[in-house]
């Protein structure tokens, strides 16, 4: 095992977080296969259905199975279990055909019931986390929604960190007029109340966009608001590093200053940069959630965790009657906590004064 793996195992919390994140990102990559249904498929007679997977019944013994539920009150959307009617759940079940990565059709899913194969029979569809008020499967929507929610953090951090590195690095290295101009620009962007800038840009550009465009727009806006703080930090560090001898040597060898900056000075800060990526990702994820919460983020038919929370989990009556609609919130908590635990570990490693606890 590598050195860092050994050190990682010694910190169970961070190690567990890493495993959770790897699992979630793998699930995101293969969500067509893992999700039993298309995220926008409407099950007309199953709206607001509670999670219906059970593991034991007298009729079928142990094993994953779905008990039939029938609606008893169509005003409050209440269901009752039907006695003795069970549908078995299969692994690698034949189900709805969806395009896998948009490349080839896929009709085998990790788990499912015979619902799609014989609509005449009494087979019930499986809803691991229940359905929303249009009868869409919450579990499938969470998996497809992670395509947006889990990637927006890395794309956003990449954008804002690139901006911060270029501007902060130049301000710190060249100093003088460059420093003055860039720092005033940073202060100016910090000066504009961030949320209102977002509101502005979003309301200007929001008319009739498809999901891909609004995804990019949200990322760009969030990183545009976020880079000045990091740029100031990087400027300070470049200031400190550029007085060291190896920079003077490189300059004496008449290296171009941009390559001194990015080949010699920036790598010195790599641990801090990795740290700021790890801590920046959950920030972007929560930023998307906040925007979606305000109705300015991802909207139907595209799906993200933020838009699911906005749609289903914001009214108190909804949450009390249908608590499973809070599931995307739980995923959100898990992801932000996991990133923070890993960030905590990296911070400890990056801190030269920190000694590993025995």
């Amino acid at each position, binding site marked *: 095992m590598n050195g860092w793996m050994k050190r990682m195992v010694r910190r169970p919390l961070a190690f567990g977080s890493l495993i959770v994140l790897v699992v979630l990102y793998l699930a995101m990559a293969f969500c067509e296969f893992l999700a039993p249904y298309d995220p926008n498929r409407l099950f007309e007679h199953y709206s607001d259905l509670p999670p219906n997977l059970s593991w034991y019944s007298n009729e079928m013994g142990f094993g994953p199975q779905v008990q039939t539920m029938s609606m008893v009150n169509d005003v409050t959307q209440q269901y009752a279990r039907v006695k003795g009617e069970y549908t078995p759940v299969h692994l690698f079940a034949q189900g709805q055909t969806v395009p896998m990565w948009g490349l080839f059709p896929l009709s085998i899913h990790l788990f499912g019931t015979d619902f799609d194969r014989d609509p005449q029979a009494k087979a019930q569809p499986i809803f691991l986390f229940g359905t929303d008020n249009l009868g869409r499967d919450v579990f499938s929507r969470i998996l497809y929604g992670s395509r947006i929610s889990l990637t927006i953090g890395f794309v956003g951090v990449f954008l804002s960190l690139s901006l911060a590195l270029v501007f902060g690095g130049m301000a710190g290295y060249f100093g003088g007029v460059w420093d003055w101009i860039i720092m005033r620009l940073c202060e*100016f962007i910090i000066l504009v109340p961030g949320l209102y800038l977002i509101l502005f840009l979003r309301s200007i550009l929001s008319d009739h966009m498809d999901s891909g465009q609004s995804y990019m727009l949200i990322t760009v806006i969030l990183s545009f608001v976020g880079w000045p703080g990091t740029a100031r930090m990087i400027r300070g560090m470049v200031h400190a590093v550029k007085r060291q001898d190896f920079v003077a040597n490189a300059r004496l060898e008449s290296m171009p200053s941009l390559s001194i900056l990015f080949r010699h000075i920036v790598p010195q800060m790599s641990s801090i940069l990795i740290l700021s990526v790890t801590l920046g990702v959950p920030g972007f994820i*929560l930023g998307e959630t906040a925007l979606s919460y305000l109705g300015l983020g991802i909207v139907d038919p595209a799906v993200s965790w933020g838009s699911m929370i906005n749609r289903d989990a914001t009214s108190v009556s909804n949450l009390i009657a249908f608590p499973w609609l809070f599931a995307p919130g739980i995923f959100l908590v898990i992801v932000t906590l996991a990133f923070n*635990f890993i960030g905590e570990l990296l911070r400890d490693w990056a801190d030269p004064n920190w000694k590993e606890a025995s």
Partner: protein
Amino acid sequence: MDAPTLADRWAKERSRHPLVFFFVQRIVTMVLMLFVLGLGVFGLMSLAPGDIVDNYVRSQMLTMTDFRSNDNAVDPQQIAEAKHRLGLDRPFYEQYFHWLKQVFIDHDLGRSLISRAPVLFLVSSRMINSIVLNLISLVILTVASFSLGIWLSSKAGTKLDVAAAFVSLFLNAFPGILLLLLLQMFAAASGWFPVTAYPTDNFEGNPTGFGFSYLYHIFLPLLGAFLGSLGGSLRLIRATMLDQLGQPYVTALRSRGIAEGRIRFHHAFRNTMNPFITGSSNLLADLFSGSLILEIIFSYPGIGRLMYEAVLQKDINLVMTNIMFISALLLVGMLLSDLALALVDPRVRYQKS
């Protein structure tokens, strides 16, 4: 020989009063920045498709029950007139200069374009609500996080410290929106707390009753805001405190037999103030700007929601007043925190290095 002597005197004065020159320079930059910011706001507003009159007309058309297309319900001439009256047909920089003249020469912030109420009245009545809420939250947060942080730093290495570090990391990482939503769900499910954050009683009739009712209503939102920010500040205080306690001067003080409590409060604690003063530059602006998400979830009538609606409806007078006010406060806060830093920390001096 006039010019060089002037330049000399300038340099001489500058070296004699570095702090004054530093701040004058900062203030001039500030005013310029605010000017550009206002221009930017008007520019962005004019870039946005549709203006306030279009929005109004559209909403009227949507509410009309028996709308037929050949009804001349919306007179283009009337629309043009309304736009002309509000000055919306002019380029944005002219609108901006008109606004500047209105504010600085006529001393009038104008009226909200939607509700026709004076902007000053709208903003001040909402802002008081936000300030009260933020002030209570700030005081509680500061007192709690400083006392807890200093106390925990004396327990460093114990099990309690490990548990506290975990809890504060957890609180720091927990999504704020979800925390507020969960608290509201708790209020609704248990029935012990109201789900909205503002009492319905009248203040004039019964001030004491209003006060208690107010505290009762804001308890949960305050708890949410408190828990959300406690984690971060607790971690920061604990870390800086431990950093200071590991410095050689603390060992020197200890070797001279100074009491541990005195070392903590009179020496280490004073040195932990620096990062907080730098970090508190946006404190002033935060006090006045309200928190949008909290106000929306708990339907609290604060400035954040007013602004949110104003931006969406393109109510330019309201937006300008608030953004300029908050930005000015932010700049003043930055300036004050620099000044406070120079007063507290004798090592910080504003000279040309």
